[in-house]
């Protein structure tokens, strides 16, 4: 492939503020980087940390979460709930060695089409600097490594004991759910 | 009776001039002008200008380079920044005037007999050579170059300066003259 690498961003936008702001950016014909894919949720409070981890595991280089400004949530305080969850999620990502720039939470009101544009462009620039995350490839490599290890063990010793850890590496998202979701 | 053609044809424009000016730091917002005339309304010197500041903006935007650079207007700007802070479109009009002055000097197209560009250049030379400026010497030089007669008219003032102990014929010089000159040269090298 000769095409230059562009980061993939999955965005979770709340229906009332940020999704509407993105619509406004469209109506106003603002131009921004095309590598963002928006998934509409009713509220940023619906964003399960699993969604973020799942997106990263499936090949996203960054995840953007957009909600209403504090105090402006259509559902009173879903955005605060997201904020609390986000703090924990960030800690988890740090522990996993995933750069901070990759996951971003932004308050964008329905009137701030220009902010949608600015945030997406800024995040794209930052991710271009940070480079690809490539989790699927990394998992593949780990899988290979583990398989090789297993074979080695099976070849050298009789019974293999490495499968549990392989399973865990393959599905970090599922494993982490109970750690982060309960906030 | 001789008639002057005032219509402007496309050929009268120096295409790209406006864009060039707009690319200079501080001059970007030139294109936002709505021609309201606030700049002229607040400019204390607009009453002596051949074109009002607003007209200079419009002429620059539409590439009437020769007319703009040859105007007296840009040399009447005293850099008081009233236009810049009052402009409803926040256009850096003072900076645009500076840019136009620079171009007029570079291309030596400023109106003859105007002392302002002469003063600017003498000033710059003095800074380059000595690092500091002696206002009295500077004024003398400027008058000598532009209007020696006027210099005579200033003798009362000179006398006053001497009497009040503010007159000095000694040119102050900085130690790091060579350094400063070197620094200024790098700007030309970088161009």
């Amino acid at each position, binding site marked *: 492939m000769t095409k230059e690498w562009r980061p993939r961003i999955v965005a979770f936008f709340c229906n009332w503020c940020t999704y509407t702001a993105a619509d406004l950016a469209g109506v106003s014909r603002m131009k921004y980087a095309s590598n963002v894919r928006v998934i509409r949720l009713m509220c940023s409070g619906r964003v399960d940390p699993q969604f973020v981890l799942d997106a990263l595991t499936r090949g996203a280089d960054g995840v953007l979460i957009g909600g209403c400004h504090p105090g402006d949530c259509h559902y009173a305080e879903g955005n605060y709930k997201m904020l609390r969850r986000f703090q924990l999620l960030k800690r988890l990502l740090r522990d996993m060695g995933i750069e901070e720039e990759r996951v971003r939470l932004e308050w964008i009101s329905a009137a701030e089409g220009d902010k949608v544009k600015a945030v997406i462009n800024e995040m794209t620039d930052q991710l271009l600097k940070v480079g690809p995350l490539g989790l699927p490839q990394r998992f593949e490599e780990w899988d290979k490594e583990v398989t090789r290890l297993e074979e080695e063990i099976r070849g050298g010793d009789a019974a293999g004991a490495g499968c549990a850890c392989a399973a865990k590496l393959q599905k970090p998202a599922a494993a982490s759910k109970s750690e982060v979701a309960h906030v | 009776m001789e008639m002057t053609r005032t219509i402007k044809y496309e050929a009268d424009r120096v295409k790209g001039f406006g864009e060039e000016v707009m690319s*200079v*730091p*501080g001059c970007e917002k030139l294109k936002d002008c709505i021609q309201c005339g606030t700049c002229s309304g607040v400019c*204390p*010197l607009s*009453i*002596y200008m051949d074109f009002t500041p607003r007209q200079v903006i419009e002429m620059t935007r539409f590439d009437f380079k020769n007319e703009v650079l040859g105007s007296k207007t840009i*040399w*009447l700007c*005293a*850099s*008081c*920044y*009233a236009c*810049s*802070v009052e402009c409803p479109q926040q256009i850096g009009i*003072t900076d645009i005037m*500076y*840019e136009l002055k*620079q171009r007029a*000097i570079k291309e030596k197209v400023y109106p003859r007999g*105007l*002392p*302002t*560009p002469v*003063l*600017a*250049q003498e*000033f*710059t030379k*003095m*800074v380059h050579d000595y*690092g*500091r*400026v*002696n*206002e*009295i010497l500077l*004024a003398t030089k*400027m008058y000598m170059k532009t209007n020696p007669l006027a210099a005579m008219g200033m003798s009362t*003032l000179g006398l006053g*300066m001497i009497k*009040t*102990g*503010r007159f*000095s014929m000694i040119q*102050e010089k*900085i*130690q*790091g003259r060579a*350094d*400063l000159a*070197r*620094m*200024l*040269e*790098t*700007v030309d090298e*970088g*161009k």
Partner: protein
Amino acid sequence: MKYSYYPGCSLKGQGRAYEESLLPVMRHLGIELEELPDWNCCGATAYMAVDEGKACVAASRNLAIAEKAGLQQVLAPCSACYLVLNKTQHLIHDYPQIKSAVDRAMTSVNLKYSTDIPVRHPLDVLISDVGVDAIKQKVTHPLKGLKVAPYYGCQIVRPYATFDDQFNPTSMDRILEALGATMVQFPLKTKCCGGSLTGTLPEAGLRLSYIILKEAIKRGADVIATVCPLCLFNLDSFHGKIAAKWESARIPTVYFTQLMGLAFGMTAKQMGLQRGLVPMKPLASAPACCAARTAAAAT
């Protein structure tokens, strides 16, 4: 409190009375000023008209020297210096092409420009760091009955004033009121004095000085107080020409620091008041050596 002091060419030349009054007044208020070693001219309004890049380079040499001197802030009493040094920082900050030009120049002589060191005007320091109350406490000879037209001129408030209102500055008003003086209502406080045009195009330049002078008189001022050596020069030096062209509008113009010194009990001579072409009348409250009459009362 200690600041780097950038006097600028005027304060060493025709505007020396500004320095003569500023230094003792600041010392009296506990402010130490350390003159920048081997500073050069800021470039004023003239350099920007010739070459913006060079103007920034020349001005930034002073900022680099200040950085090297290690003090946290620079005091620039001349309005043009204050504006140019601040403007240079803004340009370096906002435009990469200016920054790289400055960096290149710095490297060529082993200097470094790394931080935007705050460049402040004495009015700012007096109002924000010293405070009106501290000034009031030092007043021994209140300027009772003195009516002052506070004249700020253009370049300290426009376009970068951060310490005062751009359209209606009051910092000097507050300081002078603390000295006991009365301010006349003076809507021309930020109008242009004509700048260097008084010399280059006197018809245009002097008209602006004339308007300021005549309005100060009309509004009942005894004296105009200013913060800029060029403003003072323009308002003080051309009375003959102004009278010939329009009408006589003789009124003394002084640096606000000169008034501060008088109120602190310093003498008119110490404050360099004799350097004005239109002398300021001695004050009833002036210290001993100025008015013998009050000297007796004071002792």
